[in-house]
């Protein structure tokens, strides 16, 4: 299979994402940041990706980590902004309306367990192409892969999008949120150099013979394959800078020593994915042990299980501030927002997550702050000198991932947008040459 990225043709493999293929071919950079035009590369594994945005034909701002390769695919890197234009489109956008007793969102271990225990008609939504479960109509089990729940609404109503073209409207008696957790990075100077990646992404990509250094705050990186060194923040060690230009060549440690490397795999901890929980007004609270927000309180008919609830996540000793040049210490890669701007916002008198977010734009980009929100709040709390929980949280809004207008409009377009209503005499009127007044009906 062949595909083209930025004008160069590459060989691709079945079932590979565009990002995975680029990384396998040793493309570390290839992207540029929106404001400063700094070189950027693939950073994450799935929907948390802040850098690797591409235009594919008329489709703007696709995440390379979610694009499944097809033969002949042509992708252009984008500098944070996409292009929209009129193009013919023969996609059949559609919608389904279904009911079930148990809706499980997320097909990981916790989701599978919930589906197996769930009574009545069970629907499982899994964003990736793979699930350990398969549909079994005799058991009332329906498994939808490549289907992302994008919104949780009043009355236990979930809207999910399958492959960008079919919208599922699901009314469920019981909803189990098993959306897992997303790794977050660590903020330090030049932490945006291509080759710096989330550890959870780096260990899944084919990095070839790359020299990998791991920088961690927790035990989730213990099993990292073939690292040349591990910098463990828990023993007081810090990465204080990175070397290189277009791509990472090494890291500088707190004692001034350097380690040459091609990839820096970072783990700043894990954030339970609570977007859907928050859509319905679910509350969260800060948990010091795992250094993350976990769900608290109740929502009628909604449960959170597995790592989305914080279960099984490692203890974390977070590193919020590193020192050094804060103008190149990036908190939100997609928005190009740095620590210096956050500090300026605090200096201006801002004390709340919602204000700091609007001042710096951290968390407002198309990745919905999946890797930036918590590290920004951690840094802010430390600068102000208050517990992180005092800053309040900023709530998530639907959709969980961006959805095209065409997908959501579905079939309600053209003649079906608002079917014309005519009187029984209409045909007779036309036959007799009547002149009509457009009254909008």
């Amino acid at each position, binding site marked *: 299979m062949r595909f083209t990225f930025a004008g160069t043709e590459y060989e691709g493999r079945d079932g590979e994402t565009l990002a995975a293929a680029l990384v396998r071919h040793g493309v570390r950079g290839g992207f540029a940041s929106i404001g400063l035009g700094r070189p950027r590369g693939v950073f994450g594994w799935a929907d948390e990706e802040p850098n690797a945005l591409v235009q594919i034909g008329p489709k703007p701002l696709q995440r390379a980590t979610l694009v499944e390769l097809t033969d002949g695919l042509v992708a252009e890197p984008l500098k944070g902004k996409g292009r929209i234009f009129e193009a013919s489109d023969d996609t059949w956008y559609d919608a389904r309306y279904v009911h079930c007793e148990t809706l499980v969102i997320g097909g990981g271990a916790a989701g599978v367990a919930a589906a197996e225990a769930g009574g009545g008609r069970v629907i499982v939504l899994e964003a990736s192409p793979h699930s350990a479960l398969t549909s079994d109509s005799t058991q009332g089990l329906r498994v939808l892969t490549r289907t992302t729940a994008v919104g949780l609404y009043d009355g236990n109503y979930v809207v999910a999008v399958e492959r960008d073209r079919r919208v599922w409207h699901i009314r469920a008696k019981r909803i189990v949120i098993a959306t897992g957790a997303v790794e977050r990075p660590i903020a330090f100077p030049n932490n945006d150099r291509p080759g710096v990646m989330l550890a959870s992404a780096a260990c899944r990509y084919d990095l070839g013979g790359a020299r990998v250094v791991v920088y961690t705050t927790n035990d989730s990186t213990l099993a990292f394959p073939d690292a040349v060194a591990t910098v463990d923040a828990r023993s007081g060690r810090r990465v204080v800078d990175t070397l290189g230009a277009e791509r990472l060549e090494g890291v500088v440690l707190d004692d001034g020593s350097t380690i040459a490397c091609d990839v820096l795999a970072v783990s700043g901890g894990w954030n339970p994915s609570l977007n859907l929980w928050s859509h319905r007004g679910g509350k969260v609270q800060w948990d010091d042990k795992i250094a993350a927000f976990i769900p608290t309180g109740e929502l009628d008919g909604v449960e959170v299980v597995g790592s989305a609830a914080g279960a099984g996540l490692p203890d974390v000793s977070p590193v919020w501030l590193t020192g050094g040049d804060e103008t190149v210490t990036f908190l939100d890669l997609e928005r190009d927002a740095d620590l210096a701007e956050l500090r300026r916002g605090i200096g201006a008198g801002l004390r709340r997550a919602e204000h700091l977010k609007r001042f710096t734009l951290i968390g407002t980009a198309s990745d919905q702050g999946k890797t930036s929100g918590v590290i920004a709040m951690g840094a802010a709390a430390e600068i102000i000198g208050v517990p992180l929980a005092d800053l309040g949280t900023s709530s998530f809004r*639907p959709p969980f991932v*961006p959805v095209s207008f065409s997908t959501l409009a579905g079939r309600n377009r053209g003649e079906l947008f608002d079917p014309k209503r005519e009187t029984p005499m209409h045909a007779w009127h036309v036959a007799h040459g009547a002149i009509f007044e457009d009254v909008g009906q």
Partner: protein
Amino acid sequence: MREGHPDFLWRNPEPKSSYEVVIVGAGGHGLATAYYLAKNHGITDIAVIEKGWIGGGNATRNTTVVRSNYLWDESAAIYEHSLKLWEGLSEDLDYNVLYDPRGVLNLAHSLGDVREGQRRVNANRLNGVDAEWLDPDDVNEFCPIVNVSPDARYPVLGATLQRRGGIARHEPVVWGFARAADALGVDIIQGCEVTGIEVEGGRAVAVKTTQGRIAAGRIGLVAAGHSSVLAKYAGVELPIQSHPLQALVSDLYEQVLDTVVMSNAVHVYVSQAHKGELVMGAGIDAYNSYTQRGSNHVIEHQLSAALELFPIFAQARVLRTWGGIVDVCPDASPIIGATPVEGLFVNCGWGTGGFKATPGSGWVFAWTLAHGKAHTLNEPFSLERFTTGALIDEHGAAAVAH
């Protein structure tokens, strides 16, 4: 003027036990009221009390359409007063509010719309408000991405255009008023909910809050969707219903739209913000609610409608949707003035369209609080009109009132 936020915004003071004026609600209107009270009337012993954070309500949830082309004389006067203030606001606040008079088109899709639109253009001109009527070809020239095909389900039969209308950016507006008020000595108290109003002998004397009792010479309620709840603390009933109103933004695109397009018939209003996102408003949800969220089908309908008018949006993507709680008045006009309780004043009922009024509303309400009676601009917008019947019905100009 340079873009971006300044190095200092506001203090975070502790509340005092008493103020000359207490304003409830640190949205755009409440903060503008405080600013003009201090600046125009020399009253600086003011607290603005906010249960959440500055601008956490509708002030920063709206779609930022600014215009003044309302039908009736009373409305034209107050919205035009506001538009004039917009024109000098960045200088006045020393904060670039990104007010951008890029023109507002209101599309007509039926002969009824055409007649209403032309009537409004005439009425606007008589009131000194700039207004033009465009036929479909002019619309196409002014905004080429609008589908003006006669075969469209709702063909474009013409449009009104107010060139001085446009958009602004919420944070600089709201933060600008907050900063300027703070600099003049106004205490803005965030995270402080008003939970009661003390009335003694027919006079409001204090508010009860989650941070204690705060006595006040005069109290102004500027709480948008929560106005009914607050007024009731003082035994005052308002003819207001609170509804969710939703909006959405897309992710960022190269510029394709340099004006504001609104269509009452198909319920679309859209602009493209400076950073590149498409900003679109939906209709209100039918039911009363204080949840800041609405139903998904309202958004889906909105997108179908948008694609009828703008085929170019087909692959644009919804990045975020949200809702605010709007205070809907029976005649789609605000209530600004005294209440039956002495010393207690309200400024509410702006519903789906009060962002554009932010400076004007604050200006007249400051005058009202300073003088204890209405300014001529807000006199017609009294609570009594629901007894006298002198309504100011702006449903026509405001069916999608933004």
